[in-house]
């Protein structure tokens, strides 16, 4: 089986979809000749031409806004935002139109648009290149929000969302672009609408997604050495959320930790914690503990490791729920 990186998984997914469906177009800054700053669109313009792999002017609202127009016409645009922090200029098009057009038109003008965003920290970048912005989108009704954590999921989930009839914010864990996995492409097996149980366990459920999955896996490995069996769940879809898998696990373990990177206040982990408690308060032996970023602007590269949830902070949280 060939070994691919997560970035390659994404690149192959785009190629796969573009080959199968000539309505799929890719657009964004530097996605053409340069193949994207992370090479996710590498060689696509060579294969599919300038009309289907479009180097846009430098304007994110323009990218999403014209993407919406293309979708009204009948195309399926996959829009790239170059970095998380440069998505904000497109915020109006995303919240006021992308999220609401289907509803506004009673389903007559649905928008099958994917907005790909490399997100999160850990690559030593300058300001605005390390934001975890999922909470803005999980709170916006009408959007779907997806984030892969492995190369095979990267491929399969991106294919899924491109085929999805609804607008999807597709969050790519940029610091995991280079992780590897043996994968036979195309990946078609498995129901990737469900959360992925990364590791089974009985003592505590750890919910996470995207870039934090690796961190949590390592922590679970470490905890296992101390005899603590963590059940690790990679959510994949933040909306729609696979609450069933989550609740089944929490019922079993009675304890939950949520690990994410975003500033913790108002993060998606708040929703998870609130929801778990609301849905099954009595199963909980301890409050849901959240491990996340601090409520500060994302720090400069030299100290970002102090911000990002690490093994120790995850293990502390596991201890906390176990010894509550």
């Amino acid at each position: 089986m060939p070994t691919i990186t997560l970035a390659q998984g994404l690149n192959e997914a785009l190629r796969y979809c573009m080959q199968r469906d000539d309505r799929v177009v890719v657009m964004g800054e530097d996605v053409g000749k340069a193949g994207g700053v992370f090479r996710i669109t590498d060689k696509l313009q060579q294969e599919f031409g300038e009309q289907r792999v479009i180097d846009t002017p430098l304007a994110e609202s323009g990218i999403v806004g014209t993407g919406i127009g293309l979708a009204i016409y009948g195309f399926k645009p996959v829009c790239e935002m170059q970095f998380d922090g440069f998505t904000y200029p497109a915020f109006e098009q995303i919240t006021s139109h992308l999220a609401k057009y289907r509803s506004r038109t009673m389903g007559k003008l649905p928008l099958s648009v994917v907005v790909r965003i490399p997100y999160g920290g850990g690559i030593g970048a300058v300001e605005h290149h390390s934001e975890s912005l999922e909470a803005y989108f999980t709170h916006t009704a009408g959007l779907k929000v997806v984030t892969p954590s492995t190369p095979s999921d990267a491929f399969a989930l991106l294919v899924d969302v491109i085929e999805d009839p609804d607008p999807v914010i597709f969050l790519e864990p940029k610091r995991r672009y280079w992780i590897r996995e043996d994968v036979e492409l195309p990946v078609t097996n498995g129901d990737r609408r469900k959360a992925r149980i990364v590791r089974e366990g009985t003592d505590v459920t750890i919910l996470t997604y995207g870039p934090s999955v690796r961190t949590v896996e390592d922590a679970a490995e470490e905890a296992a050495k101390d005899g603590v069996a963590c059940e690790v769940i990679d959510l994949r879809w933040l909306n729609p959320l696979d609450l069933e898998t989550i609740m089944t696990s929490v019922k079993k373990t009675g304890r939950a930790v949520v690990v994410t990177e975003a500033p913790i206040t108002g993060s998606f982990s708040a929703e998870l914690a609130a929801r778990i408690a609301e849905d099954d308060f009595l199963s909980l032996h301890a409050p849901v503990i959240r491990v996340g970023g601090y409520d500060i602007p994302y720090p400069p590269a030299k100290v970002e490791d102090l911000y990002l949830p690490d093994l120790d902070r995850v293990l502390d949280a596991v201890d906390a729920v176990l010894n509550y």
Partner: protein
Amino acid sequence: MKGFVDPGSVSTESVQVLKPDGTLVPDHGYDIDLKEEDLREIYRVMILTRRIDQESTNLQRQGELGVYTPALGQEGAQVGAAYALEPQDWIFPSYRELGFAMLRGVQPSHILHLFRGTWHGGLFDYREYCIAPYAVPIATQTLHAVGFATGAKIDGTNTVAITCFGDGATSEGDFHEACNFAGVWKTPVVFFCQNNQYAISVPLAKQTAAPTIAVKALGYGFPGVRVDGNDVLASYVVTREAVRRARRGEGPTLIEAVTYRRGPHSTADDPSRYRTDEELNTWEALDPIARFEKYLETEGVLTAEFKEQCDAEGREAASKLRKEIVGAGPLDPNLLFEHVYAERTPNLEEQFAQFKRDQEGQ
């Protein structure tokens, strides 16, 4: 200084075909390719637009609409431009483009239900009429038009898109991005700006220091043109040229139709706070319908009978509108959960169940 390009050098003249007194401008420079029935059709739609517009304001005053944004005074700009389109050309309007919809034959109440709060997008079939839903966030629809027309271009279908917006809209970043994308992509799109002198209370001079709105096109590498927006024939010929350019693959055009919003911005607005009666009177004297009427009468195209016919049609349409609006119940509220996504998510399924239980409980 040498090398400085100077806004003072920009021409501020407008294309005009009919003088305010309804006579032809001798050297207007355009081919008027309209037959008598075309002229009558344009007239009919202008009358219809005004009548429905008036009735909508009435309906709002009577509490039947939450708000309404009158098109009074802008019928010439709108109907003239709309008449230059083919039926398959898409229109991306803002919220004051009644004339376009009337020309396409949209049922007035289907639009007005938006203002009644029945459904955000109104109730008409966008694909049937090739009109996108009204866009409320200013200038955002201009990008949709560019994307749509780009799609048409990729497919080689020869379809053109036109997008309508106001003078105020030209200040938004989205307008700029739309023009710029369209310029680079040579998109078959027409940017149709109704410069009605105000964005709510803000007069043009506080909106932009540009000598004209038309000149903005130069910064995107395509032509701009200023036209007397109260001259329906000028609006028609200028838009026709822009549409032809687009269809020939020559890319976008920016049209600035100089006109005036004679009503309030919306029924919630009190224009006496920010503009004078004199100003209003000046523009009332330039009424687009009166001007066109004079022309048609001189040309012998407009019989008393046809005029009466148009008035009758207007009255009838207005009373039909009234009937369809007054007291109309809300849609089935369950619809709120129907089209958020293609299918209800498990989360919405749950909320929907709760919603229904709450409804029944009440």
